């Protein structure tokens, strides 16, 4: 990609989307990524930048319920979409069962991959409320974690799935 030339005035374009349930209208550059929009324009820094190439999954958010790498998603491409980030997971002070399980079972160590993992897991449980271990492994295989060796993450997702099923809740 060509670098942005400093003389060129930035053309900003209007964008409307729903972020964590709130309707948002912003003016963004055509080169802005969804990750930059969330972190720099909306101040939602819970979504992390780990590689900026779609390799590590630290920037995973839900786009109309599907997990995407926000770092390789252009902001303007999500016009009208619903975006969910880690900041919208809890219901006020009440943690989402995934968050609760991650704290209790030690699934978050350094925490840098955690936001992305939580959202990939949320998408999985929405589609498959009682996933097998192998299905969880595959669903999270785009979220790299260097701390945990994944064991506690898989345990936590299983735990949250059970909690959600027993409460009859939608993830």
């Amino acid at each position, binding site marked *: 990609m060509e*670098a*942005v*030339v*400093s003389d060129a005035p930035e053309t900003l374009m209007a964008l409307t989307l729903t972020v964590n349930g709130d309707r948002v209208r912003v003016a963004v550059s055509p*080169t802005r990524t969804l990750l930059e929009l969330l*972190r720099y324009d909306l101040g*939602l*820094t*819970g*979504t*992390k*930048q*780990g*590689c*900026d*190439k779609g*390799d*590590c999954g*630290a920037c995973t958010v839900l786009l109309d319920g599907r997990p995407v790498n926000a770092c390789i998603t252009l902001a303007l491409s999500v016009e009208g979409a619903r975006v969910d*980030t*880690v*900041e919208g*997971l*809890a219901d006020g002070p009440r*943690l989402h069962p995934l*968050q609760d399980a*991650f*704290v*209790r*079972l*030690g699934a*978050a*160590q*350094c*925490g*840098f*991959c*955690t*936001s992305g993992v*939580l959202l990939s897991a949320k998408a999985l449980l929405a589609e498959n409320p009682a996933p097998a271990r192998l299905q*969880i*492994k*595959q669903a*999270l*295989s*785009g*979220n*790299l*974690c*260097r*701390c*945990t*060796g*994944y*064991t*506690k*993450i*898989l345990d936590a997702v299983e735990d949250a799935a059970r909690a959600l099923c027993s409460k009859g809740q939608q993830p």
Partner: protein
Amino acid sequence: MIVGTKIPRKEGLQKVTGAARYVDDIVFPDMLHGVTVRSTAPRGKIKAIHFAPSIRWNEFTVITAKDIPGKNYVALITYDQPFLADTVINHPEEPVVLLAHHDKHVLEEARRAVTIEVEALPPVLTIEESLAKTQIVWGQDNSPHENIFKEYTVVKGDVAAAFARQDVSLFEAEYATGAQEQLYIENNGMIATYSAQDGVTVWGSMQCPYYVHKGLLPLFALGDDKVRVIQTETGGGFGGKEEYPTLLAGHAALLAMKAGKPVKMIYDRQEDMAATTKRHPSKTRVKSAVTKDGDLVGLDIDFVIDGGAYNTLSPVVLSRGTIHSAGPYHTPNVRVHSRAVATNSPPHGAFRGFGAPQSIFALERHLDEVARKMALDPVALRKRNFIRQGETTATSQTIREPVDLAAVLDKALAAADYDAKKKRFLAMNPSSVVKRGIGFATFMHGAGFTGSGEKTLASVVGVEALANGHVRVLAASTEIGQGTNTVFAQIVSDTLALPYDMIDVAQPDTRDVPNSGPTVASRTCMVVGKLVQSAAIGLEQTLVNAGDYKHGAGADAFAAACAKYIAKHGSLKCYSQYQQPANVEWDDKKYQGDAYATYAWAAYVAEVSVDMATYEIRCDDFVAAQEIGRVVHPVLAEGQIEGGVAQGIGYAIYEKVVWKEGRMANGQMTNYIMPTSADAPPIRVLFDEQPSPHGPFGAKGIGELPMDGPAPAILNAIAMALDVSPRAIPFLPEDLMALVKK
């Protein structure tokens, strides 16, 4: 008791809600971004720096070595590494120019518009070239030490006599390990501000705030109180944020001083992987003398690591690798000769295990080869030679605490169903395209700094009580995911018989916390935790002496006593400083004595499958059994082992740094492959607890241990499955193909 329970981690809530603030989440008004322009040649002389006229350079803050107000070296063990290369280039990622601008995109364009003109000199790129002294790239003084950062010789008994015995068989082979990237998910990053009144302040991702502090003092020629270092929430370290952050902090601060504005520098993944430290590549030649019954009577080991272009921590990495090279065996005659050599790669540095994974890989592979050649059972061979209480290590250290590594091994083998699986795989493999194998490794890992290191560090920890009875731990030991905050709070909670919620751990900030030493060497829980405990005891004693409190009187009584004391004296703090235990003695000259106060002991078993149609290698199952003293927090401790094992699996069969002219050619996660959730096997963690007097509540070190065992266990499993002798890691499908087609 809170120690031994699964209490939730202190900062867990912030981490699962996205509220935790990492360095790149912090923004200051009017802040600039900074980038580094690096050399491209591995070795040479800087002839000129060209700034392309297409850029309006007056919009930028530009720094070269000429702008440095103090000394241009990174103060660590030696002062050979510059913050910015002035005239000489010693590796291809050498920083030369720093740029700052408020617009990141414009900045990137400018970085590409700077050209460093280098008169190239022939580089030294491998251990062999460095030892052959094809070029002298470090320490030019016509002495035998040219190109050698450090050299050790450890001698116990009489190796020559052992090798000359008539009743022994002799074995010899060379083993190699590759570089490995730490690959914390949060890249290195720093923010710096500068003012004439306050001096330099930096915020950033780091393991060792006082290393950064020590490095910035000479760079700016400032006094202690004019440099302040604050750790932000840190997204993993594994050694990769031990020494390197000093360099980045210096760069950000140089830009901030000249710009007169805050400057943020965050590496992107490619730069972080290519320019920052990695695990030292190594070569180990192991010679052994073994009786027909399997007594290991002699070991002669030559261990060499590639230190890269500057000394950094290589002498200490070499030391740990040297001491661990003879393993957990009571071999009566040992000679270890080791060297850290200079090459024109970026400096290699700290990475979990710190030299031990390299030399342990060599020995544990070697012993399996010895067993195979002598038709001995590899389990029986190990058990026959395990060190026992009262026996001595390679440095003639007498193991005073009880140790039963045979029991740990039995536990691991039973959990892995080793005997039955081995039998079944050997029967099935001849008729199967997918060959299966099971292998193991046994090892020890010393906790805390090597030799006289802890004595030299003389770490200090503080504990402060507030008027509401809350207690704050004051230490520079960082939370980097491993659980420092939680473990310290547990220790204080149980020591003072106060609720866990009344204990906080201060964010490391050199203005507020004493130097408790670096967060490295499996020392935080054991060494620093013990200081936390003694400081807490001292604090309570202050209240008892004041006549206002009695141990166990409860939270309300404690709060009342604190309020009264603070009202009278202003504050209530107690500090504790490390004292070397009387029976721990180390001779730095002879490299003999108590290398570590205590050791953790482990046996790891790996099961693999190898597809002979595709040469794909998978680790299917893993059992990690270890004796680590008292387990302070079972969930955090298991997490340390599981994470370390996954890194070890990557080290063994996935993670390959591809070198091109001294530079990492695959600096991205696309083709530097670390294990994903789909690759990681089930990891079963088993603990034995033999409380040690050296740690709080009997705890020992744990963080580095799990890095040592996976690679030899996995390669031993591959060797069993295929009846081959792989001697180098990473062992990738192409390496397997080359080995079996030979």
